[in-house]
């Protein structure tokens, strides 16, 4: 099978989040980046498992600058056969989806995988847009994917339960927890990663339709206030005026 896996880079989960440019841009300074866990743990690993069982090729794709190569090479270390980086600063879900679609159109992929969302912007948008651009069906939040010959059996998480679908043909799938189990790259994989192809291509021209004007952090929680157990009046006042819960 010919499999494409979209991977993106996200700040490491303990990174301190801040903004620049009048709060319209994420401040990357001093932030450590990792591969988005939904992409790495579930989408990529399931693609590799399929390749291992039925043969074929796994291509990892990322939209981003050269500094993303570190993250991309991790995908190669885990087991992708080759990688493509579309040399553009990701702007929005739409441009990202368009760039990838323009590449994927030529590639004749059986399945295009991505994570159900990135853990930073939580957009969950690239998958559906990509499917639209490629004119392919889209299975979101897939927690299981089995192949029965050329037929794919996909289990999706839906509110309070599961839905199972079958499909024969190419499709786009976004991965949720359960689709696979995280794989730690082994030493041989890491040493091989450098020798696998990482092709850099320029993006097609796409105009963005929206711009981000502002980010806000949640307000910092204030500390716990300790009151004298007998001071009911003060408690009521605080709950009313400060906590505004009564």
């Amino acid at each position, binding site marked *: 099978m010919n499999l494409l896996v979209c991977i993106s880079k996200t700040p490491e989960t303990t990174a301190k989040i801040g903004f620049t440019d009048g709060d319209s841009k994420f401040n990357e300074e*001093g932030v450590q980046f990792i591969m988005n866990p939904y992409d790495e743990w579930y989408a990529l690993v399931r693609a590799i498992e399929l390749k291992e069982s039925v043969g074929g090729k796994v291509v990892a794709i990322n939209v981003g600058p050269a500094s993303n190569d*570190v993250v991309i*090479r*991790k995908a190669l*270390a885990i087991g992708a056969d080759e990688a493509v980086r579309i040399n553009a600063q990701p702007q929005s879900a739409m441009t990202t989806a368009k760039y990838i679609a323009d590449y994927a159109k030529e590639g004749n992929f059986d399945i295009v995988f991505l994570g159900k969302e990135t853990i930073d912007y939580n957009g969950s948008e690239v998958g559906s847009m990509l499917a639209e651009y490629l004119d392919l069906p889209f299975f979101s939040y897939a927690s299981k994917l089995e192949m029965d010959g050329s037929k794919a059996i996909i289990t999706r998480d839906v509110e309070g339960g599961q839905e199972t679908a079958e499909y024969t043909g190419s499709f786009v799938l976004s991965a949720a927890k359960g689709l696979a189990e*995280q794989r*730690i*790259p*082994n*030493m*041989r994989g*890491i*040493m091989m*990663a*450098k020798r696998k192809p990482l092709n850099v291509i320029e993006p097609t021209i796409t105009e963005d339709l929206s711009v981000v004007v502002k980010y806000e952090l949640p307000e910092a929680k204030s*500390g716990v206030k300790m009151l004298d157990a007998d001071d009911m009046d003060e408690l009521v006042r605080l709950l009313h005026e400060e906590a505004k819960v009564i």
Partner: protein
Amino acid sequence: MSTVSDKVALKGCEFLLKESTWLDAYGPEDFNEEQLMIQSMVREFNEQEVHTRREKLEKLEEGLNEMLLEKMGELGLLGSHMPEQYGGMDLDFNTNSIIAEEMGTTGGFSVSYNAHTGIGMLPILYFGTEEQKSTYLPKLLTGEWKASYCLTEPNSGSDALAAKTKAILSEDGSHYVLNGQKMWISNAGFANIFTVFAQVDGDKFTGFILDKDMPGLTLGAEEKKLGIKASSTRQVFLENVKVPVENVLGEIGNGHLIAFNVLNTGRYKLGASCLGGYKKLVEVSAKYANERHQFKVPISSFGAIQHKLGEQTIQTYVSESAIYRVSNLINEKIKELKAAGKSNAEAKLEAAEEYALECSIIKIVGSEVLDYVVDEAVQIHGGMGYSEENPVAQAFRDARINRIFEGTNEINRMLMVNVLMKRAMKGQLDLMTPVMAIQSELMNGTSASDTDYGTYADEKEAIKGFKKCLLLVVGAAAQDVMSGKLNLKEEQEILTNLSNVITQIFMAESVLIRTEKIKERGQHKVDFEVYESAMKTYFHQSRFVIHQNAVEAVMAFANDSMVGGLLKSVAAFSKYRVKDVKTLRRTVAASVIKEEAYCL
């Protein structure tokens, strides 16, 4: 990555006589992409597989150590330091240091890992026949077999060569019969392979490879230990165990070579492993200090706590600089020896031997900084630190073993001076010329040189003085030894003082050259001021440590006619302009408090 390749690398002990520059420094900021990937892979493994099983490991749940070692084998982590022909990855020494450091966060399990990959495998690699290597190493590398190393006995610990276990050749010459008792054997509970040392004909100390199914080999119960409870430690009893002659390791009577040589690398690795442990403790300490409020403010706002956080970080930064400096020295030496045609095993063995003194320094420093950092971590946690609910309590107990095994720190201190003296006697190291130069400098009253040191002139001048201080005292002691007035071997207190000075010099110089390198290359991750503050605080302390130890040594041996002059010179050489270390430490503390992690 390496900038020193066209320079002649410093030989063992030579740092005491020669100047090093920032071009000789090496630290985590120099890791390449592959090394960083391996670092994060080991971290991931530990987080997912080891830390999540902490409680079960502490109970020494059956099969767990084995399972984790096998998983490490699958990932290629058990053979990262072994030749490819046996299934290893043959990664360079620096990359293996990174792995050792990361494994240091895993408490007792790190002992299982270290015993298996270190004292378990290395004797076979270094001294095994081709057949032994191809029989044992591939299975040890995948983790299918686990290894242990049996040197210590109830009546021979530090004095390892006094072992009583006997090996007697059978009449037909086909096997040896082993009888004896081994004690404190790590991994004994699950090992398949036991490297055992025994006396052939009563006095030929020799190594043997035993496997667990040999009749007559039995195990004692698990020891009830203070810490590293996750590690299996048992006695091994040998009762008429028949060991085929093919299983003799190395040559008859050469067991001491095996026993001592594997220890150099072991000591270095132990230090690197401790570093991983205390880096994590700095993080845990800073996080707790920010979380915990008393008197309505986080305790991290108190000067007394900042002192601890600052000092923990400074000690970590300085020792990290020393540890990776030694790593890189060994790394370069291995490359040099391989290029000169040595086999993989020979190169590794010889390189570690070359830096025996430095390996002892790293063993001592790693284990002692760990004890300092973990003790203060408990203190920062207050009562919570005393609760077994909190991992800090376990870390406190786990830390203590490191000053005891791989040669106690006392033994390593004696050894260090011993190595230095031996090399001087054998003419491998010219101690006498610089000693005489100092003596004539003192007689002619030459004052401070007007060398233009450039950056960090004060620190460079101080290092020069510290080295002179050591050479002065060593020279004076050597004269007394030669005239028969001093039996230095019997004066362990003096040896200890000298080893403390040697260690302090190595550490101070390591942090100096690394800090300058970070400055030159703009490699700082937090404000550069933090690095500089750490270095300056350490120099300030070094001046006092060196002065005190040198004075104690001089007072212990110098006669009345010498003592005045020596003390004056010691004072003149152990100089560094004192600093406002309160402010410097606060600067360092502020950065860990902000980052909530060891951030240099």
